[in-house]
């Protein structure tokens, strides 16, 4: 499998958590927002969201909208917020480590 896909899969969870942390969002809105930043199979979002709910990082609520079906909003739980912060720290550390390594390699 393309290594890039694995990268994106790992990043998707962080993106989703951060986006939900900004404000409560519904599935399609999330798909749109994620696509703005990274190119990813949008369908992978829904299994991920289900997992986040199952693990207690998110809760959902339905909201009727004037047009279209009711929207299922996702809301971050306090536990989810802790999870997000942990992932963000891990992410930053990882990125800086890799960047350092690449930089060192480019000097050779």
């Amino acid at each position: 499998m393309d290594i890039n896909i694995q990268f994106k899969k790992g990043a998707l969870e962080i993106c989703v958590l951060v986006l939900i942390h900004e404000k409560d969002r519904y599935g399609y809105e999330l798909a749109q927002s994620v696509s703005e930043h990274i190119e990813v199979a949008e369908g992978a979002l829904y299994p991920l969201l289900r997992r986040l709910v199952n693990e207690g990082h998110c809760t959902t609520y339905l909201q009727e909208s004037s047009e279209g079906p009711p929207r299922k909003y996702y809301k971050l739980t306090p536990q989810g917020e802790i999870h997000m912060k942990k992932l963000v720290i891990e992410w930053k550390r990882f990125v800086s480590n890799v960047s350092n390594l690449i930089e060192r390699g480019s000097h050779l």
Partner: protein
Amino acid sequence: MNKSEFISLLSSHLSALPPEERSELMEDYEAHFAFALQNGKTEEEIVRELGDPAELAQEALGNRVAPQHPLYWFGDRPEGQAAGTPAAQAPAAQVPAAARPRYRKAAPAVYTGLFFLNLLMMPLLAALWAFGLSIALAAAAGIFSPAFLLLEYAFNGAFQPAKAFAVLTMVGLGIFLAIGSRYAYSNITKLSASYWAWNVRAAKGVKINE
């Protein structure tokens, strides 16, 4: 591929999921189509953006089979590991909390069933124990019958030879019964213990190895 093709393909790939979970997930995708169509996208466009149904299904099934953390290629480096270790160590994901031994919860029906079963089994076991005890007591009485004969002789001063022969028989019977009661005791104990263990297993549920 259009919407209905995508939906039916995904649905068939998800057939391993429990029905309610599957229909919930399918609703999510249906809603996605509805919102995207509203935004003026074509079905083909939406399907392309959603991705390959087989891979999506794998994603959904993977989440379910073991609620594992996804493979974090930026995962935690285990404590004490030198910073210069090969990059291959990087994906070492943290041990999921789910790795702890878990017990499948028994349904309430199981408890109810056990209750009524025990209502029947407890008196039965008690009867078995009483039976075993009575054999042991009979054995003891037989073996100690000479002592009773001596007591009678000491207090009443009477001695009947017929009783002496009877005592001889009683001791013989007592020894047989003593051997029998040993078997009865060990077997009834085993039976009770295994019945108890079975009860605990049934009530607690089966240990799952993940």
